[in-house]
């Protein structure tokens, strides 16, 4: 048995509490700032207790948006972000699970070529090929559309690897038995493999939902119409205003609204989040 010094345990708790407080501090300031009127924030030191402008601030950003900075209502942008995040996460799961199924359960010419083509996507993050990818999307007429926002980000080597890894752990006798019982590949996939892969799908969903929700550079280059703005995208526009002070109370309200959904997903699906994080990197 390992001995435990009570002073050391106490020190560990202190370090952790300090760490948690340090990490939560920006969030706390954001929350407080979003409950005050702008003059309160601009006239010197900000109070560290909640103000009484919460309702006004939040209803303003959700309902009208900040027309001065050229942004639509946050409710519309939250909806756009949700569409993009769900499109990317569900789309990635769908196309990578069937691709992994093909690679694991079939033997066909060019199997390894296909595998390498998928693998290569790991090495080409969107930031690296931004201009030519923009050109492809523009040529296809997909600028300012959900398809243009979602489709180019949907291929995922990590997803295919994760499902391949999982399929390799499924006993081969299962597929053998299904085949002997007369089930074709589609039936085996839908009725046996898919229910077994639920945990892997949940893990991938958390990671990819966050990835999709937090996209910044790609929406920045493919959207020009306000009706397709995502909430993450407008951050720079709000903060970098010229000639006037940024309206921090409203910006902090928008920032908070922009992080609530992904934070809820991570905390509510914590078990799968950790699993997804650790397993997609294998």
């Amino acid at each position, binding site marked *: 048995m390992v001995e435990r010094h009570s002073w050391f345990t106490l020190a560990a708790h202190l370090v952790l509490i300090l760490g948690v407080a340090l990490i939560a501090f920006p969030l706390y300031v954001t929350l407080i700032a979003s409950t005050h009127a702008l003059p309160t924030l601009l006239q010197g030191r900000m109070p560290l207790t909640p103000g009484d402008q919460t309702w006004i601030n939040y209803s303003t950003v959700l309902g009208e948006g900040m027309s001065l900075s050229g942004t639509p209502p946050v409710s519309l942008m939250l909806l756009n972000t949700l569409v993009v995040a769900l499109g990317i996460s569900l789309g990635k799961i769908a196309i990578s699970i069937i691709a992994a199924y093909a690679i694991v359960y079939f033997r066909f010419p060019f199997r390894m070529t296909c595998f390498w083509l998928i693998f290569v996507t790991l090495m080409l993050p969107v930031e*690296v090929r931004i201009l030519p990818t923009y050109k492809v999307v523009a040529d296809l007429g997909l600028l300012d559309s959900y398809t243009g926002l979602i489709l180019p980000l949907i291929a995922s080597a990590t997803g295919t690897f994760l499902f391949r890894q999982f399929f390799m752990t499924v006993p081969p006798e299962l597929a053998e038995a299904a085949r002997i019982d007369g089930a074709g590949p589609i039936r085996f996939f839908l009725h046996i493999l898919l229910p077994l892969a639920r945990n892997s799908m949940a893990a991938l969903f958390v990671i990819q939902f966050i990835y999709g929700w937090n996209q910044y550079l790609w929406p920045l280059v493919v959207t020009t119409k306000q009706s397709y703005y995502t909430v993450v995208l407008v951050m720079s526009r709000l903060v970098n205003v010229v000639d006037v002070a940024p309206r921090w109370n409203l910006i902090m309200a928008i920032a908070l609204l922009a992080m609530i959904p*992904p934070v809820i997903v991570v905390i509510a699906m914590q078990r799968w989040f950790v699993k997804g994080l650790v397993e997609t990197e294998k």
Partner: protein
Amino acid sequence: MPTRAVFPDKVTPYLLLAPQLAVTLVFFIWPAVQALRQSVLVEDAFGLATRFVWFENFERLFHDPNYLHSFEVTAVFSLAVACFGLALSLLLAAMADHVLRGAGLYKTLLIWPYAVAPAVCGALYGFLFDPTVGEVTHALRPLGVTWNYIQNGNQALLLVIVAACWNQISYNFVFFLAGLQSIPKSLIEAAALDGAGPGRRFWSVKFPLLSPTAFFLLTVNVVYAFFGTFGIIDVLTKGGPAMATDILVYKVYSDSFRALDLGGSAAQSVVLMAIVIALTVAQFRYVERKVHY
């Protein structure tokens, strides 16, 4: 590569692979090939004629003091983000691994920054460190520090490093904690029986066993600092002041969409691709090595 290969169908696998391959070819391979092609061409001012110039674009790039400066900034930035981020998260993970009570709660309270978008993180830090109204700016004033990251390049770089570390800390924490918890208890007990205290047990037993995780996280963090921090930079500093935070990926973006220098930005893309490939290979060699442990 092994396969289960139970179904003899010849067409089905291609149909199953078609969506992923189509997206990969159209949005990944084709643009990458275009970047490679553009990087060895020069277009005239009207975009009417192109000329094949071998490596002229790259030569121009590596003789451009701004580009070399951007390389330096990226190196300092990514090293600082990786080192500070890893040190802090390792400390927290070691403590969370030690405590018995409340470990789960600490974990929940430490993982949420992962979910915050880099651009949103930038907005949070922009307010906290605002030169006139920022909470931290006020706190620094009595200490004699004039905080103005909008004019002071070093402060700007420091700010984006702090923001990037904050955003990435959960990721590192989760991996370090998982690594610590997978160390067999018998090893720790043996060390304790031999009289090693908590500090000695950490540095002589746990830390060496964690080194593969640390190396993996190092490459992941460098990749993150290179590419994942675009939103933070764009919201906080836009590469400024005076290019003090102009990291490579930000430069590709501004040269592509503002300066519209096709050949130059394509050459920059190709350099970045080479860097990602090198880092990915390093990461995969780590995975191979881990198998032998």
